[in-house]
């Protein structure tokens, strides 16, 4: 990745920068540039979120405010901009935006950063809709999460910036040649005036173009004219990932750098009482023991020596209030919370209580899901170097700007004194989002006490036991099916609610429905985990819908169909999934299929899973068919990979995943007791896309949402055993014969 220097970042809209055109563009969808300036910018500051730079050499550099963690946005976002710019793709390059205020909306940024607890600034908490708020958060604060990069930054930002830059180039050419703008065409980074035979490259016209104002309202291309978007374009980040040259956070090396390994209080909320440092200091390569309020850190000349020396210490902890916690006590607390009055109501239509009270028969079910760890392949780490009053930081973060400000706050330095350097990121899945940057804060605290550069590393065990976990939850569902087999009431009551808004909802036409939730039932640190509440609610809702189908004596696909008559997009993906999987034909001997459908992050996805029970009594998932309507697809190869990968992520959780708590400590330590789906267990997947042309949906998370229910529903179809607690490996199905 190249570097963007500050001297390039000037001007109010467009600028000559390094001999080229630099277009910055206010991309907030609900307002014009002027309105955005009113909210946020100061005199002389630039209100920009997304940028394109055109060089004299005709190169096009797209500056992307998001982090790449394998989801492909460092390629798909430039594709969207280049499409509207009519750029020659072979000339397009990508740079990740620096964590600099100049690449963020000043007003929005300040609002958020003044209050890092995450509350929304007042001017955003009013009537603005979810998309607007998320756009501001995601683009201007450089957050990469919520499957927002393409659907918000790309749609609202990259496309408009590309179109605006193209319009400015056309204006410049029209002025230079004394012809009508309308008579100029653009293609492959060239401007052409056919009648006079005049032509120029973008690079040749870039300086002149920069003198024009950035147009605010530029028409976008119709999809039928796309030349780049929709084609399988090779990702920019892949070559460095196959030859070992990609530098991840853990790979950062600086002259004289030391390695620090940390052990935080094993009990959540505990404090370090005391530690005898001598056993560690006596060991080879160890230079220092750093004591933090809630952790002890050994600093050495390599990671292994630091790790070994840390193991030689016997820190004494003040375990605090959580020392008695167990998974059972947490789940019992959730059950109790759900029976109390005063639950929050997420939504309600009709009168679900009356419908339940008046029913001859109520179908009831209780579901339980455990905590889950993100467990990205690259453990948490950050490298810092304090030199006088200047701090440099290296690492992979799902929000570089917040990381920079957090580092400054922790060090007690002005933000301008802190440089944040993005490295490649070995997975995020939510763990590296702004609210969960404990590793960064601790690295800075250690860095303040260590002379020279230092890399703080969580061992896998530390990473596994000290996460911000996908929260555990209990759900109590109640439903009524009438004589005609139609659901007349559906009440969903769950412990804890987070995000996104649609996760608790569904599109089934049910006259009386409501969702209610209890808060404050999760004592462990918890947060966003790939697809967030869809991971629990998808399982609860789509399993219960299956239970209602069986209560009605109906086929689960036909039953869902009957309740989706007024939701044509949902119906289309549901039917496609059924068709792909041969739903109406028998499964191979010893196997059965289950179906599930979710709308997640603007994308509708239906899945069919085909399962068997192995000779060991454990479930096997052989095949998964996914029918997906994301509105449109930017890069087909990465889209499919995201759906497949998201499905594997959800499947690992459904089959294996459980973080359990005993004596206030996480029990699971490593991949030995927190197992993942591996090659041999990975189902054969088929993904088919419906490009309905609806608003662009996300790709990174939807695949995770429906899979647990699809698998559970298939296991029920096979065995008659309804498993209502995850993971499935803990269920007893009896030995089957369908193992492959």
């Amino acid at each position, binding site marked *: 990745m190249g570097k963007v220097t500050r001297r390039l970042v000037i001007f109010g809209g467009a600028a000559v920068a390094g001999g080229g055109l630099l277009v910055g563009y206010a991309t907030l969808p609900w307002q014009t540039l002027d309105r955005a300036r009113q909210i946020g910018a100061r005199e002389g500051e630039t209100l920009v979120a997304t940028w394109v730079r055109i060089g004299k050499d005709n190169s096009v550099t797209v500056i992307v405010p998001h982090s790449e*963690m*394998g*989801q*492909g946005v460092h390629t798909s976002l430039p594709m969207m901009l280049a499409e509207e710019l009519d750029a020659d793709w072979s000339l397009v390059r990508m740079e990740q935006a620096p964590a600099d205020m100049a690449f963020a909306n000043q007003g929005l940024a300040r609002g958020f950063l003044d209050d890092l607890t995450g509350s929304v600034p007042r001017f955003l908490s009013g009537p603005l809709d979810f998309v607007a708020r998320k756009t501001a958060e995601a683009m201007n604060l450089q957050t990469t999460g919520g499957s927002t990069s393409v659907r918000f930054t790309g749609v609202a930002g990259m496309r408009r910036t590309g179109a605006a830059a193209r319009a400015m180039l056309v204006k410049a050419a029209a002025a230079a040649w004394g012809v009508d703008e309308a008579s100029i065409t653009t293609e492959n980074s060239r401007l052409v005036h056919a009648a006079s035979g005049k032509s120029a490259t973008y690079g040749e016209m870039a300086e002149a173009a920069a003198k024009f104002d950035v147009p605010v309202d530029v028409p976008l291309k119709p999809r039928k004219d796309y030349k780049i978007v929709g084609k399988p374009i090779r990702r920019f*980040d*892949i*070559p*460095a*990932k*196959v*030859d*070992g*040259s*990609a*530098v*991840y956070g*853990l*790979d950062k*090396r600086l002259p004289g750098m030391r*390695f620090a390994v940390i052990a935080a209080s094993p009990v959540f909320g505990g404090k370090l009482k005391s530690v005898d440092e001598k056993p560690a200091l006596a060991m*080879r390569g160890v230079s220092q023991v750093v004591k933090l309020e809630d952790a002890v850190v050994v600093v050495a*000349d*390599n*990671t*292994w020596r630091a*790790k070994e020396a840390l193991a030689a210490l016997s820190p004494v902890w003040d375990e605090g209030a959580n020392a008695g916690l167990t998974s059972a006590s947490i789940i019992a607390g959730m059950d109790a919370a759900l029976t109390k009055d005063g639950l929050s109501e997420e939504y309600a239509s009709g009168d679900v209580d009356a419908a339940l009270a008046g029913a001859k028969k109520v179908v009831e079910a209780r579901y339980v899901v455990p905590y889950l760890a993100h*467990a*990205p*392949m*690259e*453990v948490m780490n950050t490298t810092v170097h304090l030199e006088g009053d200047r701090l440099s930081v290296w690492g992979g973060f799902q929000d570089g700007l917040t990381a920079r400000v957090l580092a400054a706050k922790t060090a007690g330095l002005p933000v301008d004194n802190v440089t944040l350097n993005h490295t*490649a*990121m*070995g*997975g*995020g*899945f939510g763990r590296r989002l702004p609210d969960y940057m404990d590793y960064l804060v601790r690295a800075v605290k250690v860095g303040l006490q260590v002379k020279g550069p230092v890399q703080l590393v969580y*061992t*896998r*065990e530390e990473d596994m036991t000290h996460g911000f976990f996908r929260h555990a939850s209990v759900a109590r569902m109640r439903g009524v099916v009438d004589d005609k087999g139609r659901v007349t009431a559906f009440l969903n009551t769950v412990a804890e609610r987070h995000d996104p808004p649609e996760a608790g909802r569904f599109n089934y036409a049910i006259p009386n429905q409501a969702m209610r939730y209890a808060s404050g039932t999760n004592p462990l640190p918890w947060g966003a985990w790939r697809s967030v509440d869809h991971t629990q609610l998808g399982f609860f809702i789509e399993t219960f819908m299956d239970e209602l189908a069986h209560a009605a004596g109906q086929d689960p696909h036909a039953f869902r169909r009957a309740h989706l008559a007024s939701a044509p997009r949902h119906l289309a993906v549901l039917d496609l999934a059924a068709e792909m999987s041969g739903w109406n034909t028998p499964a191979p001997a010893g196997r059965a299929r289950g179906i599930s459908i979710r709308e997640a992050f603007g994308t509708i996805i239906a899945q069919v899973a085909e399962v068997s029970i192995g000779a060991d009594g454990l479930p096997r998932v052989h095949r998964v068919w996914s029918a997906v309507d994301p509105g449109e697809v930017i890069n087909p*190869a*990465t889209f499919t*990979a995201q759906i*497949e*990968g*998201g499905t*594997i*992520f959800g499947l*690992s959780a459904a089959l294996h995943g459980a973080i359990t708590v005993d004596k206030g400590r996480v029990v699971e330590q*490593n*991949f*030995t007791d927190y197992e*993942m*789906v*591996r*090659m*041999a267990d*990975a189902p*054969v*997947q088929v993904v088919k896309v419906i490009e309905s042309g609806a608003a662009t949906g996300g790709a990174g998370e939807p695949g995770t949402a429906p899979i647990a229910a699809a698998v559970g529903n298939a296991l029920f179809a096979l065995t008659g055993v309804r498993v209502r607690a995850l993971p499935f490996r803990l269920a007893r199905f009896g030995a089957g014969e369908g193992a492959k």
Partner: protein
Amino acid sequence: MITLTINGKAHSVDAEEAMPLLWVLRDILNFTGTKYGCGVGACGACTVLVDGAAVRSCSYPAVLAQGKAITTIEGLADGGTLHKVQQAWIDAQAPQCGFCQSGQIMAAVALLKEKPQPTDEDIDAAMTNICRCGAYAEIRAAIHAAAKG
């Protein structure tokens, strides 16, 4: 001092007997293409070749590698030409976050050396490395493509 031959070149390092090869590679010699994933041989991110066989370097004392040929991801290409497995990985667009892929590639190279035309069952048996992003289908396709190429 121990002497290790890495990617055809000898390196002398002052490392204690118990020190795993992974940390000698990463923290002493700066071959950072080989990754730390779990430290207990469970995930395969640290896979390197020792005399052509796949070895999980986090659980393999460096002293045992003396006198043997160690190949890391940095030593796979032949000058400017990628190894056929690396090229197949690019063609299949296999990596997502990419962190496990050095290990996956080294495991695949070892597999193809032993079984130049692996079946799906061979791949299942040999490729036990974790990919948290779930890129297994692309990895499988890349191995088959490399076997053909």
